[in-house]
């Protein structure tokens, strides 16, 4: 079955069956990644370029590993250090790289919409690895796979997303994905970080964490950026932890089998209690990292299948 999209720019464009298609294929890669020999060669001969205009360790490593396990030639470009400093525009950079005939372009950029803009200018498949506060589709997909494996389904779940929703592309992509899969979403955080407009996206908004966590199946914590802790959005780290940090006491309000997620990197003692994060009975944070590689392998294989003259079986 072919994949219905040329690029993976966001969850917004995907239909539920597209999401299921990626997750189903990713399952097979979870198994492969657990074997000693982890190679599948569906991307052999193809070139993957990772362009990160914003620093990233985890996502970039995950994409790099995903490409290598599928046999692609992977190149990483640290864009903060290069031509941008010399005044080259995003479009010119895109055209320059495009002339080198990459097949897959993985892009992260600090501005919302920048990856869409770039995708309009190149011939290859583009994967959005996070643009501004807009979308981070592979993160939402890996979260979905993690939830599906833990809960056996993606529909009729109550999912709480807690923390800095306003500045989070992870939150937006997750809201869109879980909404499409017919789960209910609660957003929890102070009004400075969870603006009321999110209610228009079909979410329930809570500024009381205890109320918001009552009876949920999944608790998804978000990272609080250091630069937001200076009194601009919240008064202090310790007051934030007191009201919105996840600890065993607050988690007790959720369903007894509720799972705890975090996209990483974590601030232990700011948004999540360290012991809780390490509790293998509740926390699926390490699973999320594992699912990340599998989901990215699946997404890249499906997009490569749509490339002209591709040898990847469609």
């Amino acid at each position: 079955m072919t994949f219905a999209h040329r690029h993976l720019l966001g969850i917004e464009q995907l239909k539920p069956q597209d999401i299921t298609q990626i997750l189903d294929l990713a399952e097979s890669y979870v198994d492969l990644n657990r074997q000693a020999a982890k190679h599948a060669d569906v991307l052999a001969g193809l070139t993957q370029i990772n362009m990160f205009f914003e620093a990233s360790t985890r996502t970039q490593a995950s994409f790099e590993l995903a490409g290598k396990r599928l046999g692609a030639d992977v190149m990483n470009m640290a864009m903060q250090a290069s031509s941008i400093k010399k005044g080259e525009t995003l479009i010119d950079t895109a055209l320059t790289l495009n002339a080198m005939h990459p097949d897959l372009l993985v892009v992260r950029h600090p501005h919302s919409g920048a990856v869409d803009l770039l995708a309009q200018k190149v011939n290859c498949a583009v994967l959005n690895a996070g643009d501004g506060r807009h979308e981070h589709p592979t993160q939402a997909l890996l979260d979905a796979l993690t939830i599906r494996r833990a809960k056996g389904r993606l529909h009729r779940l109550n999912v709480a997303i807690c923390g800095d929703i306003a500045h989070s592309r992870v939150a937006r992509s997750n809201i869109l994905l879980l909404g499409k899969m017919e789960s209910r979403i609660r957003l929890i955080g102070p009004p400075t970080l969870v603006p009321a407009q999110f209610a228009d996206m079909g979410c329930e908004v809570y500024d009381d964490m205890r109320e918001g966590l009552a009876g949920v199946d999944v608790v998804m914590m978000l990272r609080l950026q250091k630069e937001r802790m200076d009194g601009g959005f919240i008064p202090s780290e310790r007051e934030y932890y007191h009201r919105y940090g996840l600890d065993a006491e607050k988690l007790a309000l959720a369903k007894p089998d509720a799972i705890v997620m975090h996209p990483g990197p974590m601030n232990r003692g700011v948004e999540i209690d360290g012991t809780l994060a390490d509790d293998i009975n509740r926390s699926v944070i390490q699973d999320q990292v594992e699912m990340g590689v599998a989901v990215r392998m699946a997404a890249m294989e499906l997009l490569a299948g749509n490339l002209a003259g591709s040898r990847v079986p469609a």
Partner: protein
Amino acid sequence: MSLLFTNVRLIDPAGGTDTPGRLLVRDGRIAEVGPDIAAPEGAEVIDGRGACLAPGIVDIGVKVCEPGERHKESYKSAGKAAAAGGVTTIVTRPDTSPAIDTPEALEFVNRRAQADAPVNVLPMAALTKGREGREMTEIGFLMDAGAVAFTDCDRVVTNTKVFSRALSYARSLGALVIGHPQDPGLSDGAAATSGKFATLRGLPSVSPMAERMGLDRDLSLVEMTGARYHADQITTARALPALERAKANGLDVTAGTSIHHLTLNELDVADYRTFFKVKPPLRSEDDRMATAEAVRTGLIDIISSMHTPQDEESKRLPYEEAASGAVALETLLPAALRLYHAELLDLPTLFRAMSLNPARRLGLDAGRLETGAPADLLLFDPDVPFVLDRATLKSKSQNTPFDGQRMQGRVLGTWVAGRPVYRRN
């Protein structure tokens, strides 16, 4: 030399009428208006074939990029665009680089305009030196040199002491001050209006309340100083009651809005289309409808193009980084006619906002179809459909949000002081 228009619909905003008739021009002025005027000896006769004849548009807030960025728009190109758009008077903005903040800079503008522009050009000057909001400009000398109004454009004078002194000083000279009602703290860094759309797109956004806060502040200072004040763009429903109150209290206050805020809304930005990035950002549909209604009732006095040329390079960027502004001299009329075809505004009301009111606010005797008024006229067909191709625009910059859109209504001819400056074949 005289000129007779026959078989036209006379759109008279002063009388609020739209009647068939004839109009005679002699020596650059309107000599007679009526149903039955005989052509004088040697007069040129123009058969309008039922098209509309209206007073030429007076457009407050046009950016011509001289000095500084002539590659974006010159007096020549802006003048041609204005003539093609039925705009007979452009009132230019001082937000050039450097800003128009000295009589010498203003003389440069006058000289350039006289040499190159086929339409009337009236310059505005900066309210504070360098538009930096610290020291007021030489308002008296600038008025002597021809400045018709004073404004720092989209830079709000944040220091209320500086602003109140400038307003007081301007009042002593009877100068008109144009403000940009916006709370600069709230709107800092914003690229969209807060709401579901901005949330979905992940764009930094500003609450529509920032406009009301800016307007409330400005109106308080106007009440304090007694200055003549015009708000450049009112674009939100929530700002309207404050405006209404100020007018009811007898303050010398008028307000404008931009053609883009009257005809487009935030959803038009769609997938980060930067040609739709304007300042203030496009609003919700509710705000658009409230703004159009305020133009109908006369609460909002003036419609402007807010013509802002930007080159391709400053628009071909991620949305947040892209420059704001859109060209509009040539699309002002067909866009405004969307409001007419949608039956929101009739033609006399449109020309009250585009011709009569701006002329009155600046103390000009244009904007009317009356004996003795200057023969600044435009002849247009309100119905003819076309698809806009931005490559056909006469502006040097072609950053229009209407590219490829279906529009209705076109200028057939434009006359300034009875001289033809544009004829469409």
